[in-house]
């Protein structure tokens, strides 16, 4: 019996369970009412229905999930114990290839066999599949019936189906939220593991403090020493994300926030704020080619015109400027919120002292909103250094340790992309370096986020 069919059958059983349990509960309720006791039923009939339906579906469902993982192993075991399998080659690789082919033919995904050995295995495979499929389906159905019957016997007036269903709902929600956390943990663990492998090849000191970055040369066999100094990458990341981008985003974001909160009329604000926030919705790849195709050449021409040497067609400035523009909505939105959160009474207090609006903004609102603004900026920085697309397209690949904004620099994210695109072998230091970089990036952005959220939280508490 196939998977979809059994699932459909189970669903049907669940529906029947729901309907019949509800009907029984309704009858019980009717009887209770007839005897004049309005409170005789603890739970509404619907809850009884759900309770029984869940008992029918959940154990069988869990069993099927487990079975789906266990059954293939059992199938293979049985196939291997069949007489046709005695002639299989000994090495694992060709053996699993033949078995795979046999399975494909047996399930009808492949019409004919390339390997005669697998042709002989098709029948045993088909038998085994059918046998275990039937066994699984039968067991699932038995479980569904058993669960349903057990639950059905519990449908009594005083049975607290409502409470049970509630508990089940809670458990379901808990599992859903745990999934996200477990995923995160899984990512962290895999990052840690791969990084650990990398650091067993390259010393962490060399990685964190070395100034020469040339993983390609390491891959070509020149040795790991001096090839994985990540400082130029860190510098490039900071130079673009935290220096140039912020030099653009902070003043522009702050000023637009001030204008929107303090000067703009409500109508204008209603239009301008969403428009500004639309900037955040532009795909980063669009920013990327804008930076690479429009801004970067223009900047290079400009640099050449004013006589700066070393101007490259991919520059830190181009990537930083465009990234700054991209970040503006983050800064302005956070600054907007912080300024708006400064109590009106404080603004009134200053105005009532005879201060002008700009004096009030400068001397009262900005200082009061500063923690919130700082929090916003930190979040923006963490977003900027994690940003990939723009820098990949516009910043370049050369790991230069330079202060010249017109020069090409590279960033952590760019290098990760670089190291992992295309076919890779996952045991060389070159590939594993990407994980180490990812770990550093992860730790830094995590810290920035924690600090930013704490600052913002503390600031919120001060006014609530």
């Amino acid at each position: 019996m196939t998977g979809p069919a059994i699932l459909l059958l189970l669903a049907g059983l669940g529906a029947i369970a729901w309907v019949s349990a509800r009907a029984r509960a309704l009858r019980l309720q009717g009887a209770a009412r007839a005897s004049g006791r309005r409170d005789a039923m603890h739970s509404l009939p619907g809850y009884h229905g759900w309770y029984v339906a869940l008992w029918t579906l959940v154990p069988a469902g869990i069993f099927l999930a487990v079975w789906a993982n266990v059954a293939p192993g059992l199938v293979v075991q049985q196939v291997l114990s069949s007489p046709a399998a005695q002639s299989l080659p000994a090495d694992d690789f060709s053996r699993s290839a033949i078995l795979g082919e046999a399975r494909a033919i047996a399930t009808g995904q492949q019409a004919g066999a390339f390997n005669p050995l697998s042709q002989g295995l098709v029948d045993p495979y088909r038998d085994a599949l059918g046998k275990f499929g039937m066994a699984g389906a039968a067991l699932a159905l038995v479980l569904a019936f058993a669960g349903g019957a057990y639950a059905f016997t519990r449908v009594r007036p005083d049975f607290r189906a409502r409470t049970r269903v509630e508990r089940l709902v809670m458990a379901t929600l808990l599992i859903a939220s745990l999934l996200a956390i477990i995923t995160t943990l899984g990512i962290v663990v895999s990052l840690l593991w791969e990084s650990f492998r990398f650091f067993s090849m390259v010393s962490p000191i060399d990685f964190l403090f070395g100034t020469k970055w040339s993983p390609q040369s390491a891959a070509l066999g020149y040795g790991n020493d001096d090839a994985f100094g990540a400082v130029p990458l860190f510098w490039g990341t900071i130079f673009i994300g935290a220096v140039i981008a912020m030099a653009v985003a902070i003043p522009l974001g702050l000023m637009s926030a001030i204008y929107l909160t303090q000067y703009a009329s409500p109508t204008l604000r209603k239009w301008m704020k969403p428009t500004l926030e639309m900037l955040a919705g532009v795909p980063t790849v669009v920013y990327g080619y804008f930076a690479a195709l429009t801004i970067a050449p223009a900047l290079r021409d400009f640099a050449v015109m004013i006589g700066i040497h070393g101007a490259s067609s991919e520059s830190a400035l181009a990537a930083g400027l465009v990234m700054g523009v991209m970040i503006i909505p983050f800064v302005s939105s956070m600054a907007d919120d912080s300024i708006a959160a400064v109590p009106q009474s404080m603004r009134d207090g200053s105005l009532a002292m005879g201060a002008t609006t700009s004096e009030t903004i400068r001397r009262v609102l900005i200082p009061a909103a500063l923690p919130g603004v700082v929090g916003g900026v930190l979040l923006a920085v963490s977003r900027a250094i994690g940003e990939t697309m723009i820098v990949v397209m516009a910043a370049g690949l050369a790991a230069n340790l330079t202060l010249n904004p017109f020069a090409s620099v590279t960033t952590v994210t760019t290098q990760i992309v670089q190291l992992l695109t295309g076919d890779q072998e996952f045991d060389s230091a070159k590939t594993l370096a990407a994980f180490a970089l990812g770990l550093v990036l992860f730790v830094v952005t995590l810290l920035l986020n924690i600090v930013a959220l704490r600052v913002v939280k503390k600031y919120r508490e001060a006014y609530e």
Partner: protein
Amino acid sequence: MTAMIQEQAKPAAAVETKMTARDVKVFYGEKQAIKGVSIDVDMDNVTAFIGPSGCGKSTFLRTLNRMNDTVASARVEGTITLDGEDIYAPAMDVVQLRARVGMVFQKPNPFPKSIYENIAYGPRIHGLASGKADLDVIVEKSLRRAGLWDEVKDRLHDSGTALSGGQQQRLCIGRAIAVEPEVILMDEPCSALDPIATAKIEELIHELRGRYAIVIVTHNMQQAARVSQRTAFFHLGELVEYGVTSDIFTNPKQERTKDYITGRYG
């Protein structure tokens, strides 16, 4: 008994009228919040505005230093003068006006700066101090007048927001005093304070009386009775009755006033 009541209020000729309002109407959009109020505020008496919520007393108070200007939909008709000068005249500099007519708000709103900087704020923006030493003098004088000096003199550079509610409110009064205003408007200055802190503010108002013209809006009738010499009762945007406080509280002329102050309102 009549003689006693009349003693508390000075004869009309002797008081110096500081602000006058004539037929003042305030509109918020289409809604009329104040319906033709005429009132005189003088130097020597504390004037209290009382009335139920939404009666327009705070709105009217805010017309006296043009704080209603910050509300875009607000429109003021009629004339209000300060020392005979129309404060709604185009030539009037609203920033200067607010330096002359200070305001203290319902909730203490010290700036998130040090105590010293809170007081120094006004003198700085108006350039009242010629140097650091001068500013120190102004800060001390203002804090003394606000009755706060002894409590904070050792921690002038602590944050103003770290003070207790009552101290914060006195800091705000000190802040208003620091720019040497002529009139101080207080919008329910004690509504967020406990009774002891309230008593201190009331005592402070007593001490400030005569030096500044003081107008106080309050929900608390007892407070109006305690701190003011003149009381104005507002109801539904009208000035129902204005008179000597002791008369208003012992023998109001208008039925509406009587019902309100004896607790028969609504």
